[in-house]
């Protein structure tokens, strides 16, 4: 009998746990440790943030789903890994602290044979003074944040209906943010809803981003073949903003947010200020701060985790300049190089380096988009890790399945306005996610598969994906047939 512990119940952790339960024997145990009681289909938080969906429509409680499928669930926060056990007992374990009402604060050591770290990111609002919910800006990173953002948005709409003029600033709240695609999705949805409410003429909408150019998305942009041209993504993103009357500011590191004001440094080294009535600014990501200890209690965190808190896996972490980055630097198995029964899936693994070209201001401030972390690769990594662990438990000497972001594509549908007949969305397909200039010397990607277009069809696809992936996450009949 073996016990596999999965830390985190987001897209990657939940996928890994579900497939582990499907592929492991009846006597094997699968345990999920997550501090939150619910699953959140994060891509639909955008619609919660403009008041089109309620918080409850993008989340569901995990405990009944896991109970039904024979997965043990501990509503707890992981604190520290002990991959060598203790001096008296070599069994590896993870130290957790319960967050479940009635057990809050209680600590427990959960033993494991294999551990999947799928803890996702820490939303590092603290990296920028005054950034984040409860301070001076809003977010759509969680369903709760998105619901709060919707309240603020609808309050501003009411004020505009009374004749007031309002300015909305949407984008990234730090020079090292990722998820620019989500920020873009939110700003065009916000603009669409302003028109739907009949108050567009009372609003100034500004997109503020750390990207070198619009459409970088943390993956060094992309090129698509369209209308007789090979077009870079900045042309497409700028076109969308120009059409919608959205102003944009690129190459910006937000360093301070106060009520109604944000201060930012530009890549040219200038200090600027922008005022707003409502700001939705995404935070940078960091690891959740897990620690690791050796058998004698010595701190081995630096061996297991990178300085940013994400877990080191089978990637090439040797620092090198942008020109020498290669697709093969990216991990394939997501296995810790130190402990073979330790894996990191989804956002929890440490990328070997960014994807976008790094830039630094004259003052030394890094201002560029961090690597993208989207749902499709996170789920595929979770599934590959589950398959490898299942095989290793049956005797395989090492991991058997790969999920390199340099060998997989990603389909991303970014809503640009939600209406079944008048809505649109940008449907984007990128192959591979990490540019591979050895296989595709000109643009790093296969232009036969990489595409992007805006239209109503994209909105329909976004709706289908919303319902299909929530169905799958609830582990309803046939869930495993739905691709990641």
């Amino acid at each position, binding site marked *: 009998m073996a016990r596999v512990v999965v830390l985190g119940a987001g897209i990657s952790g939940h996928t890994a746990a579900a497939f582990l339960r499907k592929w492991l024997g009846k006597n094997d145990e699968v345990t999920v440790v997550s501090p939150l009681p619910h699953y959140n289909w994060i891509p639909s938080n955008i619609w919660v943030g403009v008041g089109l969906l309620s918080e409850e429509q993008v989340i569901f409680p995990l405990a009944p789903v896991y109970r039904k499928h024979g997965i043990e669930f501990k509503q707890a926060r992981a604190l520290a890994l002990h991959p060598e056990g203790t001096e008296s007992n070599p069994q590896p374990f993870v130290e957790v602290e319960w967050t479940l009402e009635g057990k809050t604060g209680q600590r427990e050591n959960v033993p494991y044979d294999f551990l999947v770290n799928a803890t996702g990111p820490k939303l590092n609002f603290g990296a920028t003074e005054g950034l984040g919910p409860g301070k001076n800006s809003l977010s759509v990173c969680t369903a709760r944040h998105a619901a709060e953002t919707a309240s603020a948005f609808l309050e501003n709409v009411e004020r505009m209906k009374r004749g007031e003029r309002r300015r909305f600033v949407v984008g990234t709240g730090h020079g090292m943010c990722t998820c620019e695609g989500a920020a873009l999705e939110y700003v065009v949805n916000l603009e669409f809803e302003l028109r739907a409410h009949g108050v567009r003429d009372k609003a100034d909408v500004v997109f503020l981003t750390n990207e070198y150019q619009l459409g970088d998305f943390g993956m060094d942009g992309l090129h698509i073949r369209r209308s007789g041209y090979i077009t870079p993504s900045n*042309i497409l993103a*700028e*076109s969308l*903003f*120009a*059409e919608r*009357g959205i*102003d*944009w500011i690129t190459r910006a590191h937000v360093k301070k947010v106060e009520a109604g004001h944000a201060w930012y440094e530009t890549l040219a080294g200038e200090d600027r200020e922008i005022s707003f009535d409502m700001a939705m600014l995404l935070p940078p990501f960091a690891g959740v701060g897990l620690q690791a200890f050796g058998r004698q209690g010595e701190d081995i965190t630096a061996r297991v985790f990178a300085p940013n808190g994400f877990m080191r896996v089978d990637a090439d972490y040797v620092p090198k300049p942008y020109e020498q980055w290669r697709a093969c630097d990216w991990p394939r198995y997501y296995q810790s190089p130190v402990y073979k029964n330790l894996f990191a899936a989804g956002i929890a693994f440490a990328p070997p380096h960014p994807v976008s070209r790094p830039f630094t201001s004259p003052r030394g401030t890094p201002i560029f988009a961090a690597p993208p972390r989207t749902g499709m690769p996170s789920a*595929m990594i979770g*599934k*590959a890790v589950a*398959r490898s662990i299942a095989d290793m438990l049956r005797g395989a000497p090492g991991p058997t*399945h*790969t*999920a*390199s972001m340099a*060998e*997989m*594509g*990603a*389909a991303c549908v970014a809503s640009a306005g939600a209406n079944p*007949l*008048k809505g*649109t969305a940008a*449907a984007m*397909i990128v*192959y591979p996610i990490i540019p591979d200039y050895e296989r595709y010397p000109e643009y790093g990607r296969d232009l036969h*598969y990489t*595409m992007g*277009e*805006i*239209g*109503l*069809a*994209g909105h*329909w*696809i976004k709706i289908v994906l919303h319902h299909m992936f929530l169905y799958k996450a609830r582990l309803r009949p046939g869930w495993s047939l739905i*691709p*990641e």
Partner: protein
Amino acid sequence: MSAETPSPKPREPQTMPSFFAARPTRLTLFLRNFLPWQMWRFTWINLKMLIIIRRSHRSQ
């Protein structure tokens, strides 16, 4: 210019970044919400996504 004639407002568009951005034509905007065309695009995009998913899973 008489005192009653308002002075021409300075042209501003060329000072905005959006002036240099590509903009969709009326035909492009029409096609984005034209149901028969969008039904075809729905089929085509889904097909392309399935091919990519298949290729990505095959690499595992």
